[in-house]
């Protein structure tokens, strides 16, 4: 049968030696890393905005499916989010202030001083082999309750913070949600034909992995925060709402978050009661919440599409935290899952071109 002549490829330019390709790749990666570090603040703003856009995008799509234009859908979503934030600010914020002031009063009254000092010396003695000389739980709690609200207010009054986080970032998020499809199309138009299909696949994988993971984690954090707050309220812990909110936010970080939330809850229960009466009930409450979360909430709400070994999850969270702080810890897992797919697809593509 006649061939098409397609097997006779046009003369391609001579191939560069392998070492020059590797050197060029290393230089490009080093240059990108340098830019990333130099423009870290801008990168953080864009990254956080993109994360929020991932979370809000399905809501805009849902409104679009009801007949709204993309602009109207995005505007409606933003109005709802602004409404929720305002409600949280006017109802939750005063509650947190009241709880922290109440806790501060208890700390300064000295009723828990004796118990805390015994606990501090016990922990210091136990960890002496590791070089720990003293533990200052009471001083740290005092600093937390007296300065936390003041520091938050100072930040809001800081003009640069206000403009960046409360004006520019919402605008960036708005345009990311409204024009996501056009932006994707524009980015894909720059990709050479040879890598077009695989790049499109990677982009869709990024959207589905990161988007589904983040949305699931945010919903899970909300549910855990409400459960912890309710459990602590039942146990008559005065800072129940504040600790519940903290537990919800901490739950966004796998493995480390729940532990990080338990410690302040236990410390606050000791400070409030002046003894260890509520320590065991608080630990049991956290254990029950964790059990409900793992068995009932997470399987339904959180996507398991990332598919990483638990040790790998811990390592990437630590690395993410070192590089980008709390935000790094939050996105480390879905981003690593995406990188894994990139590597797998790149290897498959390289193999395919070698065989062709």
């Amino acid at each position, binding site marked *: *049968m006649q061939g098409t002549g*397609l097997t006779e490829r*046009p003369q391609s330019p001579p191939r560069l030696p392998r070492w020059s390709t590797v050197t060029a790749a290393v230089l490009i990666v080093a240059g990108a890393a340098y830019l990333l570090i130099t423009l870290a603040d801008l990168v953080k703003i864009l990254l956080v905005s993109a994360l929020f856009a991932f979370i809000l995008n399905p809501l805009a*799509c849902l409104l679009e499916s009801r007949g709204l234009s993309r602009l109207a859908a995005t505007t409606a979503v933003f109005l709802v989010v602004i409404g929720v934030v305002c409600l949280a600010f006017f109802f939750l914020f005063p509650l947190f202030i009241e709880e922290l002031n109440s806790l501060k009063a208890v700390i300064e009254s000295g009723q828990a001083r004796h118990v805390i000092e015994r606990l501090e010396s016990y922990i210091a003695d136990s960890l002496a082999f590791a070089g720990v000389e003293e533990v200052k739980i009471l001083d740290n709690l005092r600093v937390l309750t007296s300065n936390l609200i003041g520091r938050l207010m100072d930040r809001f009054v800081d003009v640069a913070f206000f403009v960046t986080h409360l004006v520019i970032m919402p605008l960036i998020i708005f345009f990311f949600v409204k024009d996501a499809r056009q932006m994707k199309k524009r980015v894909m138009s720059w990709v050479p*034909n040879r890598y*077009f299909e695989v790049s499109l*696949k990677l982009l869709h994988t990024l959207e589905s992995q990161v988007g589904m993971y983040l949305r699931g984690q945010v919903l899970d954090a909300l549910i855990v925060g409400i459960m912890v707050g309710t459990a602590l309220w039942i146990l008559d812990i005065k800072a129940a709402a504040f600790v519940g909110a903290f537990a919800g936010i901490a739950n966004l970080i796998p493995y480390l978050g729940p532990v990080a939330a338990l410690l302040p809850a236990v410390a606050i229960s000791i400070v409030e009661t002046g003894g260890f009466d509520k320590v065991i009930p608080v630990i049991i409450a956290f254990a029950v919440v964790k059990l409900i979360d793992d068995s009932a909430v997470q399987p339904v709400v959180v996507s398991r599409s990332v598919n990483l070994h638990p040790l790998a999850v811990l390592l990437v969270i630590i690395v993410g935290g070192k590089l980008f702080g709390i935000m790094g810890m939050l996105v480390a897992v879905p981003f690593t899952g995406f990188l894994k797919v990139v590597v797998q697809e790149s290897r498959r593509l390289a193999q*395919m071109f070698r065989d062709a």
Partner: protein
Amino acid sequence: MRILWENIFRDLRKKQKDSIEILAAIPIFEDLSRRELSEIERIMHRRQYDQGEIVFHQGAQGLGMYVIVSGEVAITRDTGAHLLAELKEGDFFGELALLDDSPRTATAAALSACTLLCLFQADLLDLMQRNPRLGVRIMIRLARTIGARLRKTNEHLAAVLCREQA
């Protein structure tokens, strides 16, 4: 100076108009309104291929279908040894990839410099989410197109078997 006065958007609008007219002639998009065709054209990617450039390889994972806006494309199997079809302006190929991720059963390559419009499965699924009526209409037409190809293949196979037996 001409560029200051020329309507630089005329070319863009002409390209979009040409694309919509080509899409309207494709069975998968038949009977869709101009507005619906515009919506589909907005989610498609326009790509330029040089002569001899491969669009997709046999065995690669299928991601979407291609519509030829201009130029010619050859569909071949077994590294170009068997020519299955030569497609030209207004033709389409790779539509099975809109339904599943199976490997491509043939290689598509540009016979001449060509412009293709690509519709990908993920974008079609996204369209179905935000405009379910349009998405369902496209899927029904897609199913009919694939059914028609299957019937034609069956007739061809039956004819070949008859000839062999005779």
